[in-house]
């Protein structure tokens, strides 16, 4: 461990980000950084400008006005309570699952993992509705315990948010758990540490980079979420900043826009504080370890306990993913909304309409898949490059880049989309690049918003690599190509890919940003679902969502099967 501390100290001394030679050696660093500022920060700057200027004079009058209102403070308080509580819930579930899946001798892990991906694909209005019905007067909870739970409350919002975003924590931390050398656990155990102590003193600190990455993403997702607090909060008269901002935007009055901008800046500040706090936590545990990915179980449960653990996992995952899924699917097979689920009411007409009559469905799927793929690839490059530079030379500029890339994800979708319009219709005075009103604006918006997902994934991946590995490769004379191919790539791949999967799935069904930025010919899956939902065609929108979930699920199942077959063959050839 000591050598690592030394190497990281050496790392810190070696960098001199403000020196002239730093810039000349890294001539591409300057335009790269400027480009980041242009794409990621400028849209936000336009928004900030809107909050301090009313066209004639510049000042903080609006801040004063907004901050003096009681409603603002109550909203901020709600936001903080809800965001922190739901993030804690996501962390507990996510870390618990990651720990179990990484270390326990549970069977059928691949299948369990597939279920964890599902919440990304189910629109939040569906899962919210599903939980309301589940806990409501006619649901199974009422049936079993003779008591219904009111989800239209703070607790309800926290519960649904926490359940919706725990997969972020899981995905970011499971790889880290697998990378922690098992020898450390043995060493601690033989020195007499109990299981609890080993977890607290050895495993937890080492897993922190991953946990914190997931925590940051969950925190940002919870703070900018609109759908869940809108559905559960409006009837209970509970406001959070994202819904309050939306109310301001639709206020139409001349100052409504600027007030929304002021509130967005407040939201951004809270998001930043949250990010920085979690950042400080990772800094404390700057441990990096290099081991091969280790998927063998470390804790062997007896048969009885394993059965208990497996049942608990299956019940939890099936409940949290299938309850919304079943509600969604059953709605989609019904002739008209509100009819009971009986034979004569079942029909495939919603699917027939989507697949054969509505021309938009096909083109929307095509657009969304193309956009999601392109976004994934570009984010993969940008996010991994930032993570790589941060890993090699963590200078002030790289840390700034990290924050710059994070902010667009923290803003509520509507506000972010407005900022993108303000920015890209005319990026510089007199310059109109003509991307607005085409599919390109969606690509730009997605990249701006989702790069952080990839960056966190890649950062986590890099945090698991000791810089000495790269040095060792270099001193042994490995050229860049070899170095990447045989050392860095295999080590990085799982982490980078989980980030990429996140970007892909999030971009595939993105809804709020797209609903402001699409144009004819570039409708996406989210836009079509939003349209159906607004026109009162819940049966169509649920059918469409069910189609998407089924398609992704099928791909996932094929992938798992393919991997199994492939492994078998490789193993066979090995034994030969």
């Amino acid at each position, binding site marked *: 461990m000591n050598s690592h501390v030394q190497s990281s100290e050496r790392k810190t001394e070696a960098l001199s980000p403000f020196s002239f030679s730093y810039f000349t050696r890294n001539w*591409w660093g300057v335009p790269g950084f400027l480009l980041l500022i242009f794409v990621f920060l400028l849209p936000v700057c336009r928004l900030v400008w809107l909050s301090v200027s009313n066209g004639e004079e510049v000042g903080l009058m609006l801040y004063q006005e907004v901050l003096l209102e009681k409603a603002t403070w109550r909203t901020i308080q709600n936001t903080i309570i809800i965001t922190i509580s739901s993030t804690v819930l996501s962390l507990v579930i996510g870390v618990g699952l990651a720990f179990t899946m990484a270390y326990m001798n549970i069977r059928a892990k691949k299948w369990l993992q597939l279920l964890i991906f599902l919440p990304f694909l189910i629109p939040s209005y569906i899962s919210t509705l599903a939980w309301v019905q589940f806990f409501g*007067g006619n649901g199974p909870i009422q049936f079993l315990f003779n008591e219904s739970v009111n989800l239209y409350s703070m607790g309800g919002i926290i519960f649904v948010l926490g359940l919706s975003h725990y997969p972020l924590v899981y995905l970011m931390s499971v790889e880290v758990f697998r990378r922690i050398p098992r020898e450390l656990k043995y060493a601690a155990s033989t020195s007499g540490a109990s299981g609890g102590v080993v977890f607290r003193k050895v495993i937890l600190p080492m897993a922190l980079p991953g946990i914190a990455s997931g925590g940051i993403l969950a925190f940002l997702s919870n703070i900018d979420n609109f759908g869940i607090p809108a559905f559960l909060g409006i009837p209970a008269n509970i406001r959070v900043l994202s819904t309050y901002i939306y109310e301001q935007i639709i206020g139409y009055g001349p100052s409504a826009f600027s007030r929304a901008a002021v509130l967005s800046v407040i939201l951004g500040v809270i998001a930043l504080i949250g990010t920085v706090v979690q950042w400080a936590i990772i800094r404390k545990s700057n441990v990096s370890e290099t081991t091969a990915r280790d998927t063998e179980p470390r804790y062997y449960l007896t048969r009885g306990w394993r059965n208990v653990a497996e049942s608990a996992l299956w019940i939890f995952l099936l409940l949290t993913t299938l309850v919304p899924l079943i509600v969604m699917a059953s709605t989609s097979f019904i002739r008209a909304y*509100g*009819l009971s689920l009986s034979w004569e009411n079942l029909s495939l007409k919603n699917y027939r309409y989507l697949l054969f009559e509505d021309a938009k469905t096909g083109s929307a799927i095509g657009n969304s898949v193309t956009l999601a793929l392109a976004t994934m690839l570009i984010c993969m490059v940008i996010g991994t490059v930032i993570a790589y530079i941060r890993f090699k030379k963590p200078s002030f500029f790289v840390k700034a880049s990290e924050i710059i890339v994070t902010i667009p994800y923290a803003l509520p979708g509507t506000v972010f989309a*407005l900022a993108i319009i303000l920015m890209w*219709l005319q990026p510089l005075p007199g310059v109109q690049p*003509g991307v*607005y*009103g085409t599919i390109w604006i969606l690509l730009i918006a997605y990249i701006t918003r989702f790069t952080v997902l990839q960056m966190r994934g890649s950062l986590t991946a890099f945090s698991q690599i000791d810089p000495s590995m790269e040095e060792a490769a270099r001193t042994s004379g490995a050229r860049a190509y070899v170095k990447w191919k045989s050392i860095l790539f295999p080590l990085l791949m799982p982490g980078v890919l989980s980030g990429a999967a996140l970007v892909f799935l999030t971009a595939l069904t993105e809804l709020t940003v797209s609903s402001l930025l699409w144009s004819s010919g570039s409708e996406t899956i989210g836009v079509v679902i939003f349209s159906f939902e607004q026109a009162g065609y*819940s049966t169509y929108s649920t059918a469409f969502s069910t189609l998407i979930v089924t398609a992704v699920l099928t791909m996932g199942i094929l992938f798992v099967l393919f991997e199994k077959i492939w492994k078998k063959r490789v193993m066979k050839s090995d034994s030969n």
Partner: protein
Amino acid sequence: MRKWMLVLMFGILMAFAAGCGSKESSETSNASEDTNNTEAKVEGSLHFYTSQPDADAAKLVEGFQAKYPDVKVETFRSGTEEVISKIKAEKMAGKIQADVLLVADAVTFESLKEEDMLQAYETEEATEIPSELIDPDHTYFGTKVMATGLVVNTENVKEMPTSWNALTSKEVKGKIIMPSPLYSGAAAYNLGVFTRQDTFGWDFYKNIAANDVTVTKGNGDVLKGVAGGEKDYGMIVDYLVTRAKAEGSPVELIYPEEGVPVITEPIGIMKDAQNVEAAKAFVDFVLSEDGQKLAAELGYTPIRKGIEAPEGLKTIDEIKVLSADVQELYKTRDADKKEFETVISE
């Protein structure tokens, strides 16, 4: 590493270059439109922003293009709030893209008119539309009639109500649902109209609030609540109910005897419209007999005199309309919303 960065930057530069290139070409096409406009030829591209449901907007555009095949209509559809936000952001960024706008209610148009974003158009078709449903200065015109009535779940309620009192009687406590004026433009309009009637006033909303009303984001959620049986009565825009009923949902639409507030989904031409001729032709088409018949086919009550309403809906002559001064509604909208908040949270 350098190569990576180079490739990335090159790629982005290319994207920029491509963007700039296409912008130039679109400018030249705009220029040719302008010269054609002087000859008053209806062609080129028309940017149509609307909050109508997707399928309806598509049918409308289809009908228009059958008549004017040379016009390419580019539709942007989203919620009224999203459409207006987009236009305002475009204005701030320096260039409004929309030519023609069709969104939920007159109050929204009044705010655009106030900011001088609309242009007047003297269309002949306007003579066939009830004059109280168009702007006296002819900057916007109602295109259909959407009344807000009561929706009732027919499985839970056997005796159909006839009055708005259905929402305030003690027996329905906890069984009623309404859209939030803070989110739905139509609901905000209704709030303004109801509170300005002697027979209703703020007491109406206070009594509803005392009855443990569930407030949802939009009209669609009200339909879901009542059709799904969670609630028995709701306040809702009419066409959603007749549509759901036609498909088989257990719901019934009631026009209460006291009268109903009506929104008109107005249409208007933006001041900075680039293709004014096509925009004018589009407005004419929407208000024309053909356009209005199309609206009726899609399930809406037409606004033009003498055209029949779809089954289950009443025509404008049969409805008792509750109304209030649009100018006043526009000016007091924020205050009304604030008041609603305090009423509902008590």
